[in-house]
C-alpha cells in the first residue's frame, strides 16, 4: 500500500465517519470535515516528494492489485506529472470549500459535509486511476455528491440545475463506457498502460473510421465536462445554482476532469483521430473563448459572469491541448491549475459577498471598497490574476498556450488573443461596478470586511497566484516531462497512420 492509496481512501473513511456523527451536533460535522480534509491535504503533500524540483518519468506510488477476476479489472492507481498537481488541487480546495461553507450552510449540515468529503474521494480517484474501468467508476462516483450538493443546498432553480448537470454528464459518459468495453474486447484488458503499449507497438490498431468513433465517444464525455462550446449550457445553470463550495469544487476541479481526460486518454489512445479532428476542436475552443467572454460581459449576475468566464478560460486549455506542441500542452496543463486557483478564489469571494448582501446581482453592489477595503484588495488581486497580469499565474499559462498554438496555426492565435482582451474587459468592469463608486445605504449597512476564517480560506489561494506566477520552476518541469512523453506517444502512431493512409 502506497501513500497514494492512503490519500485516496482517507476521504472515503472520512465520509463514513461523518455519517456516524449525530445529526444534533452540526459543529462536530463541520469540525470533523475540516480536520479530515486538512489531514488529507497534509498527507497529499508527501506525494510531492519525487517531484520536488525533479521530473521522474513513469508512474510513482503505483498499486496494482486485482479487483474483479473476470473480466480482469484491476485496482491500478499511480501518479505522474499530470495527475499529481490535479490531486493536490483537489486536496487543497476541499478544506477551503469546508471553510467557506462554515456559516453559509445552515440546514442539513451533517449530510452536506459528508457529501463534500465523498466528492473529494471521487475526484482524487478520477485523477489517479490507471485502469479504464476504475476510471469510469470514479468518474460516475464524483457525479452523485455534486448532484446532491447542488440539489439540496443550491439557490432557487437548484433542482433544474442539478438534474441537468447529472443528465448531461451521465449521457456523455455512457457512450464512453461503450467505447471502454469495445477497447477491452479488442485488447483483452482494461489496464491503461497495457492498452497504450498495445497501441504503441501496433498490436492493437483500428481503421481510421473506428478510431474516430472511439475518439468521439471519449471526447463527447470529456467535452461535456470541460465544457467545450456548444455543450456548455449545463455549466452556467449548475454554477449559479450551486452553493459557494459547490461552485468552487465544480469550477476548480470537476471541469479539469474533462481536460485531464482529453490529455490522458483522447490523445495517446487515438492519436490519428485526435490529429485529424484537431482543427475542428480548435475551432470550437476558439468559439468558446470568444463566446464565453462576450456572454460574460453582458451578465448581470456575478456567478454567471464567472461561469461564462470559465467557458472562455477552458477554451484556452482545449486549444493548448489540440495544438500538439510542447508549449501548448504545458500551457494547457498549467492553465488547468491556474484556473482552479484563480476561479476558485473568485467563487470564494463572490460567496463572501453573497453571504453579506444575499444577492448575486451586480446591480445590488457598488462602493463595496469603502466598507470592506481588504475584501476589495483581495478581489483585485484575484481579478488581475484572472485577466492574466504578468507575475500572476494565468499569464504564464495563457502565454504558453498562445505560443504553442501559434506554432500550430497562427490564425488561431489572432482570435484567441482577443479572448485575453475581452477577459480584461469583463473582469475589470465587474470590479469597477462592484467595488467602486459611492456605497449605497444597504451596501454600507450589510457589508463588513473579511473575518479571520475568511482570510484563512482565501490566503492560500492568493499565495499560490503569486507563487505560480513567479516560481514556475516548482511546477513546470514535471508537467513538461509528462507532456513530452504524451507527445511522444501521440507522434509515432500517427506517423504510422499517415503512412498507412
Amino acid at each position, binding site marked *: 500500500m502506497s501513500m497514494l492509496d492512503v490519500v485516496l481512501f482517507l476521504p472515503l473513511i472520512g465520509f463514513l465517519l461523518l455519517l456516524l456523527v449525530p*445529526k444534533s451536533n452540526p459543529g462536530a460535522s463541520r469540525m470533523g470535515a475540516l480536520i479530515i480534509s486538512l489531514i488529507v491535504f497534509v498527507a497529499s503533500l508527501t506525494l510531492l516528494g519525487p517531484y520536488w524540483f525533479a521530473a521522474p518519468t513513469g508512474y510513482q506510488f503505483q498499486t496494482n492489485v486485482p479487483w*474483479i*477476476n*473476470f*473480466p480482469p479489472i484491476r485496482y491500478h492507481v499511480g501518479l505522474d506529472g499530470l495527475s499529481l498537481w490535479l490531486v493536490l488541487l483537489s486536496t487543497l480546495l476541499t478544506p477551503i470549500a469546508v471553510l467557506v461553507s462554515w456559516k453559509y450552510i445552515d440546514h*442539513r449540515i451533517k*449530510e452536506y459535509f459528508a457529501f463534500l468529503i465523498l466528492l473529494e474521494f471521487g475526484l482524487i480517484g478520477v485523477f489517479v486511476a490507471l485502469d479504464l474501468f476504475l476510471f*469510469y*467508476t470514479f468518474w*460516475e*462516483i464524483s*457525479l*452523485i455528491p455534486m*448532484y*446532491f450538493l447542488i*440539489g*439540496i443546498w443550491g439557490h432557487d432553480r*437548484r*433542482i433544474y440545475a*442539478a*438534474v441537468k448537470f*447529472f*443528465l448531461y454528464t*451521465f*449521457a456523455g459518459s*455512457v*457512450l464512453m*463506457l*461503450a467505447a471502454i*468495453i*469495445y477497447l*477491452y*474486447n479488442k485488447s483483452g484488458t482494461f489496464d491503461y498502460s497495457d492498452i497504450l503499449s498495445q497501441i504503441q507497438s501496433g498490436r492493437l490498431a483500428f481503421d481510421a473510421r473506428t478510431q474516430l468513433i472511439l475518439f468521439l465517444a471519449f471526447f463527447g464525455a470529456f467535452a461535456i465536462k470541460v465544457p467545450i462550446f456548444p455543450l456548455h449550457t449545463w455549466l452556467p445553470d449548475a454554477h449559479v445554482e450551486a452553493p459557494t463550495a459547490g461552485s468552487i469544487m465544480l469550477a476548480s476541479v470537476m471541469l479539469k476532469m474533462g481536460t485531464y481526460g482529453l490529455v490522458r486518454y483522447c490523445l495517446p489512445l487515438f492519436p490519428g483521430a485526435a490529429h485529424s479532428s484537431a482543427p475542428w476542436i480548435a475551432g470550437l475552443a476558439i468559439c468558446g473563448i470568444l463566446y464565453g467572454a462576450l456572454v460574460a460581459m453582458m451578465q448581470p449576475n456575478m456567478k454567471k459572469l464567472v461561469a461564462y468566464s470559465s467557458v472562455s478560460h477552458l477554451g484556452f486549455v482545449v486549444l493548448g491541448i489540440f495544438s500538439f506542441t510542447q508549449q501548448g500542452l504545458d500551457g494547457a496543463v498549467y492553465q488547468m491549475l491556474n484556473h482552479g486557483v484563480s476561479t476558485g478564489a473568485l467563487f470564494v469571494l463572490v460567496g463572501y459577498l453573497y453571504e453579506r448582501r444575499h444577492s448575486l446581482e451586480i446591480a445590488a453592489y457598488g462602493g463595496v471598497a469603502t466598507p470592506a477595503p481588504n475584501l476589495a484588495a483581495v478581489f483585485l488581486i484575484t481579478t488581475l490574476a484572472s485577466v492574466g497580469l504578468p507575475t500572476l499565474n494565468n499569464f504564464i499559462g495563457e502565454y504558453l498556450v498562445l505560443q504553442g498554438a501559434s506554432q500550430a496555426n497562427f490564425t488561431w492565435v489572432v482570435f484567441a488573443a482577443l479572448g485575453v482582451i475581452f477577459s480584461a474587459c469583463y473582469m475589470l468592469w465587474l470590479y469597477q461596478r462592484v467595488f467602486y463608486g459611492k456605497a449605497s445605504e444597504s451596501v454600507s449597512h450589510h457589508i463588513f470586511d473579511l473575518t479571520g476564517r475568511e482570510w484563512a480560506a482565501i490566503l492560500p489561494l492568493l499565495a499560490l497566484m503569486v507563487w505560480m506566477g513567479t516560481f514556475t520552476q516548482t511546477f513546470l518541469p514535471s508537467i513538461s516531462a509528462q507532456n513530452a512523453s504524451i507527445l511522444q506517444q501521440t507522434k509515432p502512431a500517427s506517423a504510422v497512420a499517415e503512412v498507412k493512409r
Partner: protein
Amino acid sequence: MDIANFLPTSAEYIRILPEIVLTLVGVLIMFLEAVLNDDQKGIFAPLAILGLLGAAAGAVAAYGDPGPAFQNMLTIDGFATFFRILTIGVGILVVFSSADYLRRENSRGGEFYALILWSIVGQSIMVSANELIMIFIGLEISSISSYILAGYLRDDSRNNESALKYFLLGSFATAFLLYGVAWIYGTTGSTNLSVIRGALLAGGEPLTLASVAAALIFVGFAFKISAVPFQTWAPDVYQGAPAPVSAFLSVGPKAAAFAVLVRVFLTAFGPITESWAPLVWGVALATMIVGNFAAIMQSNIKRLLAYSSIAHAGYILVAVTAHSGDGSAAVMFYLAAYAFTNVGAFTVVAYFSRKGEKYVAVDDFAGLAQRQPGMAAMLTIFLLSLIGVPLTGGFFGKFYIFKAALDAHLVWLTVLGLLNSAVAAYYYLRVLVVMYFREPGESAENLPSPGAALRIAVYASAIGTVLLGIFPGWVLDFATKSALK
C-alpha cells in the same frame, strides 16, 4: 421393458428436494391455518422462512449430484441451481418485507405464505425443466399462485382488478406457449429440449414450422417477462397488487421466465438462432424504449417501477439476443442484482405508502429523506442501482450485458441500450429529487418507524446490491461456469 426403469431412484428425489420441501411446508402452513387461533398465526412468517432456507439447502444438496431426473424431464445443472437459489432468495426477502405489510393491512392469513412457497415451487420446476410440458406445468403452478397473490387483499377493488387482469392476460399468454409447443411437437415429434435440438441440428425439419413454433413460444414468454408489445398488463397489475406482491411478481416469476427463455432458445432453438435472433433484437429495443419513455410520464411510484421493470426486461433481452455463454451469464448476474434492487425498492415503497397504500404518488415522497433518512438512503442505493451507477449491482449487470452484446457484434443495440439507460436516469432522479430536494409536505407526517422484519428485508437487499457492485465475481464466477452456451 423393465418396469424398474421407470421408478425414480433416490438420487432423483434428492434432485427435486427444494420442490418437495416447499410443497410440504406450504401444506403444513395451510393445515396450521385451520387449527391455530388468531394470536398464534405469527408463526407463519418464520415457518415460511425456515421452509425457504430448507429449500435452499435442498437446492445446494441437489447440486452436489447434478444430472437429469425423472426420465430426463428435469435436469439439475448449475444454471438450474443458480435460478433455484435466486427464486428462493427472492422468496425470503419478500416474506420479510410482507410480514409488516400484512400486519399493517390487518391481514395475517397463512395462505399468503403458502402461496408464495407454491409459486416458488412452480418457478423452481420451470428453471430445472428440460421438457416443454414440464415448463408448462411449472409455469402454471407459479402463475396460478401469483394470480391469487395479486388479489390477496380481497376487499380492495384495485387488488381485484389487478388479479383479474393478470389472470386473463396470463392465461392468454399460456395459450400461446401451448400452441407453440404443439407446433414444435408436430415438427420434431418431441417436447424434450435436447431431442428438439438434435432434430433441428440434423436438419430436414421444415425451418418455417420450427420458426413459427419458436415465435409462438417467444410470445408466451414475452407476456411473462412483460416485453413489448405484450407489456400492457404489467403497470396495472403492479399498481393494483399489494406492494410486496408487486416486488415478488416483478422479480421471481420474471427471473424464472427468463431462465426458461434462455434455456429453450439457447438449447432447443440454438440451431435456428438466425431465425429468432432478429425478432428478439427488435423486441429488446422496443421494450427498452417503451419502458423508459413511458416511465418518464408516470406520477405513481408503483407504475413508475413497473415501467422501469419493463425497461429492464429490455436490457436483459439484449443479453439474450447475444445468444452466447457470456450473454447467458450476464442474464443470470443481471437478474440476481435486479432481484435485490427491485425487491428492496418495492419494500421501501410499501413502507412509505403507509396503511391502505394511501401515498403512492411520487410527490407524496416529498422530504421523506428528512423524516426517515435511513430508509431514504436505502431507496437511493436501489435507484442508483437501477440507473446503473458504478459500485452497485445494477451497474455491473448492465456492464456485463452490454459487454456480451458488443462481443456478439451488436453495436447498435449496445449504443441504443446505453443511451436508453441515460434516459432512464431522468425518472429515477425524479424520485431522488422529491425525496431529498423538496421540503416535507403534510403527507410526510405520521410516518411510523419501520418494523424489524421490514428493516431486515431492506438492509439485506441494500447489502446485496452493494456487494454485487463491489465484488461481482462472487456471483459472476458461478454464473460464467454454469451458463448455457
